[in-house]
């Protein structure tokens, strides 16, 4: 009564889920860094709200 396939299923999915979470976090960070680099040259959206002109 060893049921090693149940143990492998539990540990395998756990490791897989953690690897996916880490890769997703790294991909999101790369995207955020690229946006930050692009945003350094672009105007800040919030700054436009302080203008006195109307839409357009």
């Amino acid at each position, binding site marked *: 009564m060893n049921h*090693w396939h149940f143990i492998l299923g*539990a540990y395998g999915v756990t490791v897989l889920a953690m690897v996916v979470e880490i890769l997703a976090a790294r991909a999101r960070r790369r995207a955020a860094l690229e946006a930050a680099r692009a945003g350094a040259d672009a105007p800040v959206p919030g700054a436009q709200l302080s203008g006195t002109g109307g839409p357009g």
Partner: protein
Amino acid sequence: MALNWYRFSSPATFYPLAGRLVPLFGWGAAVLAAVGLWLGFVVAPTDFQQGEVYRIIFIHVPSAWMSMFLYVVMAFWGALLLGFNTRLSGMMAQAIAPTGALMTFIALWSGALWGRPTWGTYWAWDARMTSELILLFLYFGIIALRQAIGDPRRADRACAVLALVGVVNIPIIYFSVKWWNTLHQGASVKLTGSSMETTMLAGMLVMSFAFWFYAIAVVLARVRTIVLERERGAAWVAELPEARSA
């Protein structure tokens, strides 16, 4: 020397501090997991009733504990946000939710695979399992609510309210095995002692610290990303070396 906690509530101050802590906790988690798995699979004996399948305990219990603990921490940051309106609190709560959902999923999944050979079923609508499933839906609800609200500060406040309302589920999960007659067994580890064999208990506690360190590392890494996403127009972000290099 008194520590000025308000200093660390500034994303600009917290961002580099979190960056230094992520590798510490990440490598700490790896070392602890290696020790915990060695204790769990090499040192700990085979259970006389369940055989080898009980070894699922070394991920099931730590993930279940973390699923509840992370929710309480998320609700704590939500309360801080509502009370003090600090930007970092909302970001911390946002960063915790996916890891909390992951821990809840692992607890349910590993529990199902443990239940089949020991109880004869993957799932039962038992109070412990059902309340843990509700916890997963609470995490999903908080993540979905945030996605549905465009303004991050409004989303922070809405998610904080939902997190605080949902925190009532945590004592229900914890005490469910006492309050109701459940298929799930009662607690083997209490503050007053444990009914487990010493090496089994040691392996489980070391793995619990491994999961804890893993969660801290991932949440801190994610909160750094959220800071970058929300503060990308700020001067201090433009001055970051990683934001300048191509």
